[in-house]
């Protein structure tokens, strides 16, 4: 299984967790909504793979960063499994965000060196 994963899988996986947590900051959502939201917001740049979305959601739930409950959707008369951010998840989001920022800055510095260093 591992062999068939692309090389950047680890980075992507961490990023996906962050994106999910950020999405849930708007309020509780079910898996489909989360996937659609990420896809829409990035103008379809990030195609949501359900194969990674659901394992990620369950991983986050296992770590206690999100909680889940079956609830009836307001627009459809059916129950969906809604995920919501926990306090622990909010803290985690802050951590991941700052880490991502540092990472992006570091990458940017290598890729586009600015004059201020010279």
């Amino acid at each position: 299984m591992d062999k068939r994963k692309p090389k950047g899988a680890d980075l992507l996986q961490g990023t996906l967790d962050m994106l999910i947590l950020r999405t849930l900051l708007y309020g509780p959502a079910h898996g489909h909504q989360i996937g659609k939201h990420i896809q829409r917001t990035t103008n379809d740049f990030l195609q949501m793979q359900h194969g990674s979305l659901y394992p990620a959601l369950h991983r986050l739930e296992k770590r206690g960063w999100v909680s889940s409950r079956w609830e009836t959707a307001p627009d459809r008369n059916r129950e969906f499994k809604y995920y919501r951010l926990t306090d622990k998840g909010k803290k985690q989001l802050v951590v991941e965000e700052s880490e991502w920022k540092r990472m992006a800055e570091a990458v940017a510095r290598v890729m586009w060196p600015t004059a201020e260093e010279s």
Partner: protein
Amino acid sequence: MRWWQIRKRNADVDRELQSDLELEEEEERERGASSQEAHYAALRAFGNPALIREQTSAVWSWSAVENVLRDLRISARTLFRSPGFSLIAILVMALCIGATTSLFTVVRSVLLRPLPFRDPDRLVMLYEHYRDPALNTPDYNYNVVSPADFYDWRSQTHGFEDMAAWRYWQFNLTGEHGELPELVEARGGSWNLFPLLGVNAAIGRTFVESEDRPDGSSVMLTWSLFERRFGGDSSIIGRQIHLDGKLYTVVGVLPKWFTYPDAGVQVWVPYATALPPEILSHHDYHFSRVVARLRPDVTLASALSQVEAVQYHLHMQYLNAPVAEDVASKTLIQDLAKDVKKPLIILLCAVACMLLIGCLNVANILVARSAARQKEIGIRSALGARRMTLIREHLAESLLISLTGGVTGVMLSLAATEWLVSKWTDLPSAQSIHVDGTVLVFGCALVFATALLAGLLPAISSTGKSAVRALQASSRTMAGSQSRTALRKTLLTVEIAATVVLLIAAGLLLKSFWRLRTADVGCLTDNVLTMSYSLPGDKYDKPEKRNAFNETLVERVRALSGVRAVALGSTVPGAGYGGDDVFTIPELPALAPGTTLPDALNRTADPGYFSALQIPLLSGRFFTSHDRTGQPKTVIISHQLAKQYFGVENPLGKHLHPPARADADYEVVGVVGDTLFQVGRQSMATMYFPVFAPDKGDNMSLTLAVRTAGDPLAISVPVQKLIAELDPELPVSDVFTMQQIIENSLGSASLSASLVLGFAVLSLILASVGLYGVLSYLMTQRTGEIGVRMAMGARREQVVALMLSNGLRPALYGLVLGLFVSVGTVRLIQSMLYGTQPLDPATFAAVAATLLAVAAVACLVPAWRASRIDPMQALRNE
């Protein structure tokens, strides 16, 4: 979420995916797609729901448990599909694991489990030790200690917290109200023995220092006597019992678990009690065992060196007496396991060998089975099954076999252990041998080890790259998988080698046992009944009284119908060491001080002793009724003594001077043939003194041997009645025929020989089944090839020869390997062999022949079947 909520969790994931998938579908429909299109579009967007579900479930750690359960379920189904194989494999495992567990139980109880005493690790036994290498036989290496040596060691050294001594003794226990007299096994233990061991009395108290004197009259009962004879009534404390006609006050009862030094002990008296006072000051009366507790801040070496210094000083002081120069020590647990350690370890090795063979056998069958599933495994790994998953599945199968076999085996071992303990009479602490938690843990470990051993090899060999290659191989391949066959042959070679090692060990032990059984004791052993009694010193205080009783008894027994002859002496040949004394020969030049004195077994005998037991007279005469107290002192010596100390000179008329017996010269009046004091041991120089001239230091216990015309046991009741008529208070003990005495002394030799033989035969069967299996497998694989050969004109004999050579080659390699290994391993059992060389050519040849014969038979069946193949049929089956 726990693992037992797996189903709930799975249902939850299913529901979640389903609802989201439906939503996707609904949205597609809302966009205007037809319901069919919407369904496919949703699925496309979603991906493989089964895979997503699996991956999502895998997030929760219980998926591992789930996988194992699934693997076990699949393997159970696989095993049920071929019940014959499963049953055999499980049975093999059950036997192997059961036998190993049983032996481990015994080994653990006897050799490994700490003794139930306070700080048992610091308890050691101290013995006298002679430096003379000629005396370094097992009897002298660890020589029992004399009382005076013990007292000096205890008072003059400081490396041990304390030292205690104990000695063997026997009492006639008689009742006040005409209860049956009985001879009770007793030990005399110094007053500090129980505090030193950390043992308290269950009822009452242990001995105090003031009781430990020759005229003491305190006694402690062991739990078994307390229950059996006194009904477990604790009011016995403070009451008096009759031992050898003297009154002893019961001060305490020992706890039930206390069976030191063995479970046969009935009463304990203080060390000095009932001993002649002068013996306590002797340095050359060796009869005590010394237990010492090491001080925590002192090393054993330094504590021992102090005792050695004292002992060497004593040796120099008594140069002409048998006082050893040195001291040797053993841990208490080693001391208790003395004679059984070696056979136990050998049996454990044998059973481990059998376990290995069993595992290899199951591995072999599993390799064959996985070969049949090669295509399936190839397809699965091509579809992306991970290698670990496949290996795990294989292991689940062998684990299931081992587990079922293990459970059956442990249950078998419960019964087997009991049987073993009841058969193996000289095991120490036999009462405490039972299966407990540790043994169960060992059994579990064994199950997993065997599962791994039996499953890993086939699992690794059948998965991996070779599995995919199986798909490439077309059905036209004739020889099948060469590497697989090679692996099976290697397994088989190892299996056969191990079998050969076991067979040779068993053969040697059996031959040695047969030698023991047929050993010439040096006297008559058929139709002889023996029994022992001990005349108490109080009632029979004068030699005349003893002689009167003994002579009357011999006369009356001789008059019984069916009695051919009667012998009376201290003991009979084959019944044990008895005792020995040093002596000097006045006619020979005096020995230089410091040389070890001549030493010989001492026996007493009546005039009829030698002729009744048919010990031949070589020169001189037997005793007559004139050799008795008050007459000139006489002695009869054995041939070995004459040869050893008189050489070519005629010993008759010369004298022996045994100082421990009497300060007098004994005239040698006869020379008789040699006898064995114990079967399996070297015969020793022996001197016989007249039983009617008792001296100090004579063994109180006498053995009456009755030679009969018919069944010797039939005479036992009439003789015992005669004794009861002469003295109703005199108990008789050890009523055995000579055959039984010899049989008893062989006890564990016969048991270990037959057990090892049993293991070896079982291994042989396993190996031949393995051989048969491999060859049958080979034959199925090569059916096409054989068909071609026969179509081309090969004759049936040639096919048989081809197949035979295929099967016999691993057998031959295994045999050679096994023989080589045996050359090394027989050294392990060398010391257990009697009259048999470890490299006994006959045994080696017999084993090789047996193995080849069995291998040939195992190979012949498949080879013959191969030759019956119809070429057309075989080729059409391609």
